[in-house]
């Protein structure tokens, strides 16, 4: 590798390239992750005790997690809700992606894409805040439902998981639409026409032609959405209540309220493992590689 770089760029540039990448991948990515894992296997100690007799390798931090029923429940709720968010997002996004890629005229598609991109550029906090206003106890949604005669007293949307789910689907929908759109767009429209001519119904055409072709897009969208949902702090913090806490909020509390970084590191590592397992499983199921995701 060195030789290829050296023959193309010469010594000074090659050294610059290699050292910049080294700083990034080693100092900014690998070592911090390693340090976090290392922390998680050590007890929390005073600075003076560090490196001393008490500074031993232990599983205490993980034992704490597995013995805390509330934290276990929140961990599994986070997984389940993130899967739910991912599924909902996929269902809502698929028809739109199909429309943009195969039904709309180029002009319509260009306009729709521009409209889709605009909210995508707006910060997650603000997009979540918008729902906070809508869901407020005396906010527009309650007023609307009241005016329609559907309810006779306001609903506390911000008190359970509903607000968090709706807010997350809203915040991450574009991470699903774009990979789906890119995948479906590369499908030759003649294949759809052929399937229709040979008598396949809409359901069958999608099941046998469009969806198999869109697999890498579906996988990418699901991975991104799940990862963002499971790792989200903003949405549950703004739209949730103490009763509907997210795993990231527990991690945050270990760091900034409990003051136990080692314990927090263990929880963070569990979250990381969860995402790695999810990514691996999805990549296996859909038989896609990392290269497909980067597109």
């Amino acid at each position, binding site marked *: 590798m060195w030789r290829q770089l050296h023959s*193309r760029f010469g010594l000074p540039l090659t050294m610059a390239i290699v050292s910049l990448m080294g700083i990034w991948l080693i100092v900014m990515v690998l070592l911090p992750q390693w340090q976090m894992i290392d922390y998680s296997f050590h007890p929390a100690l005073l600075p003076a005790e560090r490196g001393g007799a008490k500074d031993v390798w232990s599983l205490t931090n993980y034992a704490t997690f597995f013995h805390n029923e509330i934290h276990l429940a929140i961990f599994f709720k986070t997984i389940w809700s993130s899967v739910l968010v991912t599924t909902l997002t996929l269902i809502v996004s698929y028809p739109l992606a199909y429309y943009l890629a195969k039904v709309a005229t180029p002009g319509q598609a260009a306009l729709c894409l521009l409209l889709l991109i605009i*909210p995508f550029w707006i910060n997650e906090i603000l997009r979540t805040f918008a729902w906070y206003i809508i869901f407020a106890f005396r906010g*527009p949604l309650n007023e609307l439902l009241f005016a329609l005669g559907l309810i006779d007293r306001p609903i506390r949307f911000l008190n359970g998981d509903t607000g968090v789910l709706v807010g997350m689907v809203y915040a991450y929908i574009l991470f699903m639409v774009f990979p789906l759109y890119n995948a479906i767009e590369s499908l030759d429209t003649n294949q759809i026409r052929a399937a229709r001519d040979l008598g396949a119904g809409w359901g069958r055409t999608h099941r046998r032609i469009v969806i198999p072709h869109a697999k890498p897009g579906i996988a990418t969208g699901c991975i991104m959405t799940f990862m963002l949902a499971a790792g989200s702090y903003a949405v549950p*913090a703004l739209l949730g209540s103490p009763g509907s806490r997210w795993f990231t909020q527990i991690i945050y509390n270990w760091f900034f309220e409990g003051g136990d970084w080692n314990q927090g590191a263990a929880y963070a590592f569990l979250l990381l493992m969860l995402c790695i397992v999810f990514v691996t499983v999805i990549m296996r199921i859909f038989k896609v590689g990392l290269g497909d995701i980067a597109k």
Partner: protein
Amino acid sequence: MSSSRFFSWAFKAYLVIFFAYLFLPLLIMAAATFNESRFPTVTPWTGTTLRWFSALWADGGMWDSLANSLLVAVGVLCLALPIGVASALFLTTVDGRGKSFIYALILSPLLTPGVIIGISTLIFWRDWGVNGGIALTVIAQSAFIAAYVMLMVAARLQRFDRTLERAALDLGASQWQVFRRILLPYLRPAILSAAVLAFLQSLENYNTTLFVAGYDTTLTVYIASKVRTGLTPAVNALALVMIVFTVGLAVIYELKRRREAARRIA
């Protein structure tokens, strides 16, 4: 025939609902800025006012956090752009064993939850005596923003015609001159778009920043804390200003990108 008409009708309804879902929340948030009410809402409408803009203008905490955010964003540009460009040059030049491993390593920050990047950076630098603040925020954000820069620059670099390089070398240019006069000018548009993207990504980041910002509150951290304590429509005013700013930038960026794409086809 009638079933297909039903489908096309249902589909139009779906499109309308989808885009309403996308934009109504933003419109309601924007509209609440102009409501007299102390709590940001559109129901009931207690009177139209512009006073929340002056309340925002007079908010010292907002200006401090804005200054921090801009400082961080500039820092991210200085760190993530060179790293991203270097990695793109690396990946498009080498092949061989190890490459797919390095490629996976480069993409890994994009598949890691933002909170984890923040946490690991915070833990790592504590042992070196660096606590949460602007410097750490720059480092943590650059860890994943550099990957976006790499992807955008590499996409353009893959279409680069290497014979241009060889021709310049044959004509006696040094390798540095080839890089400076041929490769960099060729990459300029990609680097510029990557810079816009990196700047906005930095400005908007919350999940990573939350853990590493320390007492140097950035704009997003400030907004989130305001929503939980001391929420007034001044937050909406700030949201509106930020939306106008980002959407303006996004539209310019998008139009430029399209013109570029059109030129490539022609």
